[in-house]
C-alpha cells in the first residue's frame, strides 16, 4: 500500500521559503541565513520528490490523484486543489526540484553581495512553487495558476536588475509575448471546456478530459482549434516561432535564473503541457503536424542565429530555443516520451552550460572589477584560454557540450537520436523533418564548439590588466557544476534504445501516460523503416563530428578564417548576426505601427507597453472609451438627463415589448 498524501509538501516547502524570505528577508539581512532558507526549502521538497518518485517506481498503479481540498464546485463541475502524480509529473518534479536545488545552491555564491539578495531568493522559491503547481496540478485551472505564477516570477527575475534599462525592456517584452501565449492557452481551455460540456462533461480535470476526449470527433474542428490554441500558449511560454523573441532578451536576468527558468524548467512547460494532454493532441493530426513543423523550423532557425553570436549567454539562449524546437518536433511526431526524455537531458546539460557560463562571467566580472575595467564580461571575444584558469568549469562545460552536440554515450546523444529517429520513422513524421533536425544538429555541434574554443582554448584575449585576476569560482558554484556535469554524462543511460542493446527504461516508465493515445491513434515508428535506424544514427554522429571539426578548423587551427568567411559572405553574416532581423521586423510590424497610430490619434499620450499589441478590437474599445469618457462631462444636468433618458428607454422597451 503506497501513500502519496504527503505530496502537498513538495510545493509547500518553497512556498514557505518564499513567505519567510519575502516577509522577513529584509529584516534578516544575513545572506547566509537567507540563502540557507531558500536552498533548504527546495532541497526539502527534492527529498519528498525522491520519496514519491521511488514509491511510484515500485507501484503497480501508476496514476494517483491526491485531492487536497475542494476549490470550487458548482453542480457537477468540481474543481479541486488536487495533485496528479503519474510517471510524467513524477519525472518533472524530480527535474524541477533536483536542478532547482542545485541552482539555489549555486546562487548562494553567484548572487553574493547583490542588492536585494532576499528578494532574489524569495522570487526563486516562488518560482519553484509555481512550477511545481503547474506540473502537479490535477486540473487545468491549477495548472493555469502555476502557468501564470511562473510567468510572473520570470518577469520579476528578468527585470531583477531593473536599474538597467535593457533589463526592464526585456522583462516588458517577455511580459507582452507571454500575454499573447496565455490568451491562446485560455481560449483553448475554454473551447475544450465548452466542447466537453456539450457532451455533458463539465470538467477541467486532466484525467477526466483524457477519459472523455473520445466524445469529441477525432481530427474534428473543435479538437484542432482547441489544441492549436493550447499550442499557441506553448509557443509563448516555450519560446517557439513566432513568439520566441523574448527568450534571448531574457538573458538580462541573473545567470542562475537563465539556467533554471529559461533553460531547464519554465520554458519546457509548453512541452510538458502537450505531454499532459497527449490524448487530445493525438486526436488532432493537423495540430501535430503544425507542432512538428514549427518545432523543426525553430530548431534550425535558432541554431542558425546561434552560429554568429558573440555574447556567451546569447549563444546558449538561442541554443535553448533550438533545443526546445527539438522537443516540440518530438511532440509533433508523436514521440512523446522522446520529447520528455530530451526535456530531462536538456535540463541537465543546458543548466550545466548556463551555470558554467555563469561561472565564467562571474570570474570575468570579478577580474574586470579588480582591474577597474568596464569591458563586457559576457563577450566571448574577450575570453579564450580559460581552460587552465578554470579547470572544473571547463571540464563540466566540455562534457555538457559533448552531450548537447550528440556525441555517443552522453545523455544528449540518446535523447536527440531518439527524436531524430521518430521524426524519420513515425507515422506522423517524414524525412524532411528528419533532415531539418539533422542539419540543426550539425549547427548545434558547430556553435557549441565554437563557444568552447573561443572561451576555453587558444590564447587568453582578456585585457592584460585583468588577465591574472581570472580564477576558478568557489566550491558553492563548482559543486552544482560537477553534479550537473555528471548527470549530463550519465543521465541518458536510462533511455538507451533497444537497438543499441539497452532496455529503454525511460520509455517504459512513461508508457502508462502515452501508450494509450499512441495505440489508439496509431502513432508508432514504421516497421518498414527499421533498417534505417543504424545508418541514421551514424549520420547524426557524423554530422556532429563534422560540426566539431569545422569549429576546430575555424577557431583553433585557422583563427583568421572566420574573418575571411565573414568578408566573403557578408550579407549572410549580417543577417545571422542580427538574428535575421526578426526583432526589427516585429518592431516595425507591431510595436512601431502601434506607436505611430497612437501618436496620430492622441498626440503626446504615452503609449504604454501593452499597447504594443495592436488589434482591431483594441482600437474599437479604445475609440469607444474615448467617446464614453466625453459623455462623462462633469455636468450634473447631463448626468440627471442620462438617468431620465435611461429610464425613458427602459419604459419604452417595456411598453413596446
Amino acid at each position, binding site marked *: 500500500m503506497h501513500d502519496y498524501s504527503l505530496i502537498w509538501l513538495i510545493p509547500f516547502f518553497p512556498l514557505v521559503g518564499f513567505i519567510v524570505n519575502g516577509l522577513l528577508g529584509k529584516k534578516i539581512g544575513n545572506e547566509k541565513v537567507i540563502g540557507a532558507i531558500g536552498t533548504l526549502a527546495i532541497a526539502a521538497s527534492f527529498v519528498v520528490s525522491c520519496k514519491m518518485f521511488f514509491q511510484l517506481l515500485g507501484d503497480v498503479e501508476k496514476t494517483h490523484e491526491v485531492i487536497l481540498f475542494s476549490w470550487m464546485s458548482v453542480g457537477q463541475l468540481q474543481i479541486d486543489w488536487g495533485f496528479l502524480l503519474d510517471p510524467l509529473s513524477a519525472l518533472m518534479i524530480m527535474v524541477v526540484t533536483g536542478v532547482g536545488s542545485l541552482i539555489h545552491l549555486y546562487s548562494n555564491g553567484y548572487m553574493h553581495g547583490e542588492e536585494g539578495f532576499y528578494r532574489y531568493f524569495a522570487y526563486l522559491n516562488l518560482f519553484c512553487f509555481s512550477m511545481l503547481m503547474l506540473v502537479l496540478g490535477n486540473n487545468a485551472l491549477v495548472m493555469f495558476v502555476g502557468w501564470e505564477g511562473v510567468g510572473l516570477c520570470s518577469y520579476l527575475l528578468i527585470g531583477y536588475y531593473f536599474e538597467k534599462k535593457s533589463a526592464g525592456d526585456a522583462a516588458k517584452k517577455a511580459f507582452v509575448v507571454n500575454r499573447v501565449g496565455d490568451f491562446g492557452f485560455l481560449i483553448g481551455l475554454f473551447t475544450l471546456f465548452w466542447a466537453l460540456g456539450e457532451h455533458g462533461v463539465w470538467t477541467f480535470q486532466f484525467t477526466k478530459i483524457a477519459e472523455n476526449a473520445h466524445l469529441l470527433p477525432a481530427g474534428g474542428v473543435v479538437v484542432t482549434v482547441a489544441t492549436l490554441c493550447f499550442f499557441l500558449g506553448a509557443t509563448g511560454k516555450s519560446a517557439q516561432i513566432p513568439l520566441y523573441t523574448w527568450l534571448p532578451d531574457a538573458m538580462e536576468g541573473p545567470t542562475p535564473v537563465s539556467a533554471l527558468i529559461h533553460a531547464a524548467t519554465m520554458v519546457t512547460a509548453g512541452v510538458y503541457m502537450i505531454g499532459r494532454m497527449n490524448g487530445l493532441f493525438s486526436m488532432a493530426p493537423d495540430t501535430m503536424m503544425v507542432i512538428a513543423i514549427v518545432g523543426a523550423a525553430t530548431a534550425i532557425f535558432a541554431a542558425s542565429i546561434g552560429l554568429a553570436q558573440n555574447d556567451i549567454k546569447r549563444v546558449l539562449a538561442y541554443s535553448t530555443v533550438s533545443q526546445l524546437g527539438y522537443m516540440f518536433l518530438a511532440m509533433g511526431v508523436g514521440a512523446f516520451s522522446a520529447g520528455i526524455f530530451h526535456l530531462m537531458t536538456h535540463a541537465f546539460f543546458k543548466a550545466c552550460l548556463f551555470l558554467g557560463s555563469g561561472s565564467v562571467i562571474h570570474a570575468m566580472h570579478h577580474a574586470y572589477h579588480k582591474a577597474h575595467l568596464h569591458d563586457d564580461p559576457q563577450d566571448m571575444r574577450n575570453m579564450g584560454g580559460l581552460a587552465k584558469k578554470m579547470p572544473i568549469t571547463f571540464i563540466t562545460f566540455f562534457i555538457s557540450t559533448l552531450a548537447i552536440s550528440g556525441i555517443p554515450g552522453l545523455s544528449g546523444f540518446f535523447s536527440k537520436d531518439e527524436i531524430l529517429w521518430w521524426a524519420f520513422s513515425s507515422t506522423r513524421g517524414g524525412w524532411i523533418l528528419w533532415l531539418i533536425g539533422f542539419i540543426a544538429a550539425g549547427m548545434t555541434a558547430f556553435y557549441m564548439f565554437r563557444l568552447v574554443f573561443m572561451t576555453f582554448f587558444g590564447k587568453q584575449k582578456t585585457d592584460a590588466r585583468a588577465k591574472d585576476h581570472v580564477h576558478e569560482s568557489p566550491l558553492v558554484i563548482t559543486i552544482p557544476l560537477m553534479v550537473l556535469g555528471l548527470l549530463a554524462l550519465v543521465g541518458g543511460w536510462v533511455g538507451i534504445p533497444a537497438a543499441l542493446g539497452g532496455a529503454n527504461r525511460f520509455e517504459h516508465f512513461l508508457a502508462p501516460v502515452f501508450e494509450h493515445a499512441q495505440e489508439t491513434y496509431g502513432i508508432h515508428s514504421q516497421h518498414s523503416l527499421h533498417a534505417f535506424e543504424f545508418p541514421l544514427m551514424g549520420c547524426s554522429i557524423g554530422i556532429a563530428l563534422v560540426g566539431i571539426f569545422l569549429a576546430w578548423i575555424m577557431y583553433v587551427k585557422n583563427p583568421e578564417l572566420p574573418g575571411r568567411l565573414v568578408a566573403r559572405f557578408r550579407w549572410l553574416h549580417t543577417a545571422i548576426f542580427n538574428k535575421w532581423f526578426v526583432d526589427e521586423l516585429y518592431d516595425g510590424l507591431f510595436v512601431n505601427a502601434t506607436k505611430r497610430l497612437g501618436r496620430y490619434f492622441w498626440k503626446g499620450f504615452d503609449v504604454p507597453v501593452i499597447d504594443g499589441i495592436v488589434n482591431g478590437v483594441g482600437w474599437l474599445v479604445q475609440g469607444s472609451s474615448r467617446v464614453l*469618457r*466625453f459623455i*462623462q*462631462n*462633469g*455636468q*450634473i*444636468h447631463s448626468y*440627471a*438627463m442620462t438617468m*431620465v433618458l435611461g429610464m425613458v428607454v427602459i419604459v419604452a422597451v417595456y411598453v413596446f415589448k
Partner: protein
Amino acid sequence: MITVNHYLVLSAILFALGTFGVLTRRNAIVIFMCIELMLNAVNLSFIALSHHLGNLDGQIFVFFVMTVAAAEAAVGLALMITFFRNRESIEVDDISMLKW
C-alpha cells in the same frame, strides 16, 4: 366624480414638472427645490392611495418622507454653503471640475 386616478395624474404631472425643473435649472438650490417638489408629488400619490385603499400606511410613509426631506435639506444646504464659500457660485455649470 373625482377618483383616485385624478390625484395620481396630478401627482404624475407634478413629478414630471419637478423632473423638468431639475433638468433645466442652473441654480443648485433651485434644483434641490425641484427635487423637493418631486418628493411632494410622491407624497400626494401616497396620500391619495392611502385614502383609496383605506389604510394608514401611506400617510405614515409621507410623514417619514417629510422627516427625511428635512434631514436632506439640512445636509444639502450645508454642502451648498461650503461649495459657495470656496467657489463663489452655486451654478451647476460650475460644479464640473471633476469630469472625464
